[in-house]
C-alpha cells in the first residue's frame, strides 16, 4: 500500500478530476455563478460543456487502455488492501461504460440545449456516476462495491429529478430516491450479516470462509438481503415497481442512462459478487434467483404489452431483460459469465439506438413518447425506421442481430446448470416480447399517422444511431471478436476463482 498503487486507479482519478472541472469551470467565470432561469446557460455554454465532457471521456478511455497494460497476471491484480482489482473483467465494463457515456452525451446535447437547465452540472453528475460505476466493477470488496454503487445511485437520483420544474421529473426522482435508499439499506444489512458470519468483506475471503461453513440462518438471510438489494438495482421482478414511473418521469437521456449504463454496471457487480463470493452456497440461492428471474421475464414482458407510452414499455421490457441476465448469474458457470458480458454489450447498444430514435421524434417536451408517435415513420424517415427494426429485433433476440448471440449464451448456460425450465420460460417470453416490439414496427410501417411527431434528427443522434446499428448488426453477423473478448474477460474471473479454490 503505497503511492505506487495509485497508478491502478488512474481512470477513476482522471474522471474524478474531470467531474470536478466540469463543476467548477463554469462558476469560476465572471458572473457565471449566478443561476439564471431564463437567459439560459444553454446555447454556447452547453456546447462547450459537451466538448469538455467528450474530451474528458476520451482521456478516461486512454487511461483505461493504458492501465490495461498493467494487468499482468492473476496475482498482480489486487490493490489498496485487496479492495480493487484491475482485471480484464473490470476493463471490459469500463470501456463499455465510457462508450455508453459518450453516446449519452451526444443524445443529451439537443435535449439540454432545448431546455433551460445548465449542462455543466448535468455532465458533472454523469461523470460522477461514471466514476461510481468504474469503482463498482473494479471492486472485489463489498465495502468498495457498495460505496461505488452509492455514488452511482446518488448521482442518478439527482439526474432523474434534474428538470426540477417539471412535476413528472420531480416525482420520478422522489420515488427513485426513497425506494433506492431503502434498497441500499437492505443491501447494506445483507453485507453486514455476511461480514458478521464470515468476518471479512473481501469476496475471495468470503468464499474461503464460506467453504468451511455449513448453512446457517444468518448467512442465508444475509445472502438473500444482498440479492434483494441487487435485484432492486437491476430492476428484477418483485423489486421492479419503481421502474416504469422513474423511466417515464426522468428526462429521456437520463432514462437512457438508467436503462443502459447504470443497469449493466449492476449486472456486472451482481455477477461478480455471486460468482466469486457466494458460489459455495449456490444450491441455496440458485432456486430463489431462478424464481425471481422467471417472475421478471413474465411480469416484464406481459406488462409491456399493454403500454402505450414507449418509455413505460421499454421500462417493462428492461425488467424482462434483467430476468434474462439473471439466467447467466444463476448458472454460476463460465458460460453464464460470458453471457452476462455479451448480453450487457448487446443490450446497451440496442437500447441506446431505440432511445436515439425516441429522442429524434421531438414533438414537445415529452418527445415521441407514445407508440402512436411512430405511425408512418417509414415515410418520413425510412432509415430511422429501418434502424429501429434492427434494434427491436436485437432486443427480441432474432438471429441476424447481436441480441441472438447474447440470448444464446444465457439460455445455454441456464440449460447447462440444470435450469431447463427457466430457459423454456425465457424462450416463451422472448416470443411474447416480439409481440409488443412489433406493435412499434406495425405503427411505423402499416399505419399512416397524421405525422404530428416532427422528425428532428441532429448529427449527434444520427451518429449514435449509426454506431448502434453497426455494432448490433456487426456482432450479429460476426460475433467472433465480442465473444473472444468476453471469454478472456469472463474467463479471468473464473480462472481466479478456480485458482483460489485449487490453492486451498
Amino acid at each position, binding site marked *: 500500500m*503505497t*503511492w505506487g498503487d495509485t497508478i491502478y486507479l488512474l481512470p477513476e482519478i482522471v474522471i474524478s478530476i474531470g467531474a*470536478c472541472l466540469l*463543476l*467548477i469551470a463554469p*462558476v*469560476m467565470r465572471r458572473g*457565471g*455563478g*449566478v*443561476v439564471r432561469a431564463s437567459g439560459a446557460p444553454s446555447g454556447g455554454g452547453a456546447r462547450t460543456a459537451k466538448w469538455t465532457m467528450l474530451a474528458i471521456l476520451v482521456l478516461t478511455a486512454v487511461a483505461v487502455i493504458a492501465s490495461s497494460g498493467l494487468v499482468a497476471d492473476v496475482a498482480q491484480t489486487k490493490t489498496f488492501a485487496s479492495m480493487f482489482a484491475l482485471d480484464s473483467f473490470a476493463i471490459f465494463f469500463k470501456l463499455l461504460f465510457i462508450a455508453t457515456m459518450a453516446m449519452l452525451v451526444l443524445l443529451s446535447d439537443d435535449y439540454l440545449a432545448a431546455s433551460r437547465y445548465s449542462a455543466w452540472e448535468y455532465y458533472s453528475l454523469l461523470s460522477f456516476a461514471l466514476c461510481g460505476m468504474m469503482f463498482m466493477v473494479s471492486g472485489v470488496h463489498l465495502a468498495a462495491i457498495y460505496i461505488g454503487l452509492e455514488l452511482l445511485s446518488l448521482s442518478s437520483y439527482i439526474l432523474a429529478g434534474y428538470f426540477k420544474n417539471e412535476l413528472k421529473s420531480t416525482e420520478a426522482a422522489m420515488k427513485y430516491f426513497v425506494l433506492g435508499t431503502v434498497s441500499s439499506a437492505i443491501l447494506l444489512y445483507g453485507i453486514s450479516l455476511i461480514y458478521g458470519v464470515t468476518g471479512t468483506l473481501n469476496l475471495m475471503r468470503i468464499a474461503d470462509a464460506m467453504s468451511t461453513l455449513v448453512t446457517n440462518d444468518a448467512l442465508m438471510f444475509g445472502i438473500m438481503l444482498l440479492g434483494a438489494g441487487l435485484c432492486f438495482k437491476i430492476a428484477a421482478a418483485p423489486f421492479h415497481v419503481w421502474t416504469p414511473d422513474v423511466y417515464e418521469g426522468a428526462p429521456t437521456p437520463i432514462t437512457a442512462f438508467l436503462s443502459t449504463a447504470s443497469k449493466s454496471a449492476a449486472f456486472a457487480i451482481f455477477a461478480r459478487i455471486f460468482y466469486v463470493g457466494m458460489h459455495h452456497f449456490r444450491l441455496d440461492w440458485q432456486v430463489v434467483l431462478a424464481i425471481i428471474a422467471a417472475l421478471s421475464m413474465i411480469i416484464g414482458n406481459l406488462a409491456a404489452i399493454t403500454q402505450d407510452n414507449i418509455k413505460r414499455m421499454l421500462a417493462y421490457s428492461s425488467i424482462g431483460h434483467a430476468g434474462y441476465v439473471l439466467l447467466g448469474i444463476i448458472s454460476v458457470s463460465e458460460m453464464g459469465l460470458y453471457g452476462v458480458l455479451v448480453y450487457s454489450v448487446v443490450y446497451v447498444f440496442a437500447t441506446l439506438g431505440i432511445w436515439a430514435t425516441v429522442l429524434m421524434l421531438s414533438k414537445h417536451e415529452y418527445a415521441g413518447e407514445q407508440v402512436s408517435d411512430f405511425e408512418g415513420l417509414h415515410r418520413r424517415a425510412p432509415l430511422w425506421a429501418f434502424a429501429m427494426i434492427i434494434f427491436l429485433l436485437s432486443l427480441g433476440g432474432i438471429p441476424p442481430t447481436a441480441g441472438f448471440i447474447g440470448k444464446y449464451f444465457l439460455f445455454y448456460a441456464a440449460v447447462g446448470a440444470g435450469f431447463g425450465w427457466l430457459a423454456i420460460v425465457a424462450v416463451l417470453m422472448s416470443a411474447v416480447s416480439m409481440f409488443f416490439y412489433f406493435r412499434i414496427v406495425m405503427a411505423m410501417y402499416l399505419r399512416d399517422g397524421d405525422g404530428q411527431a416532427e422528425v428532428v434528427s441532429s448529427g449527434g443522434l444520427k451518429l449514435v444511431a449509426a454506431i448502434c446499428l453497426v455494432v448490433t448488426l456487426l456482432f450479429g453477423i460476426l460475433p467472433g471478436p465480442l465473444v473472444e473478448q468476453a471469454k478472456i474477460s469472463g474467463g479471468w474471473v473464473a480462472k481466479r476463482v478456480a485458482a483460489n479454490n485449487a490453492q486451498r
Partner: protein
Amino acid sequence: MTYSYLPILILLFVAAVLGAVFLSLNWILGRHQRNPSKLSPYESGVPLLDENRKRVNVRFYQIAMLFILFDIEAAFLYPWAVIYRSMISWYLFGEMLLFILLLGVGYVYVWKKRAFDWK
C-alpha cells in the same frame, strides 16, 4: 470497561428523579383548576395574532443540508487527527489533503452558486 461512564449514568438518573419529583409534587400539592384562561398562552396578555407554527422558508432547509454535509466531513477529521499524531507520514497527510481538496471543490461550488446568500 465502561465504568468511566458511571458518573454520566448517575447524572441522568438524578436528573430524571428530580424532574419526576418536582412534577409530581406540583401535581399532588397544587390545586386543580380547569378554565379556558388556563389554556391561553399568556394569562394576562393579548391573544395570539397568528399561528405559532408558520411555514419556514425553504432556504433554511438548504442551509441545514449543507451544514450536515460539512458536519459529516468534520467528523471524518477526528480519527485522522488521532492517528496522525502517532504516525506522521506524507501518505496520511496526502490522503487528508485530497479529502479536504474535494471538500474545497464543493465549497467553492456552493459559494459561487450563491447558496450561502440569503437572496
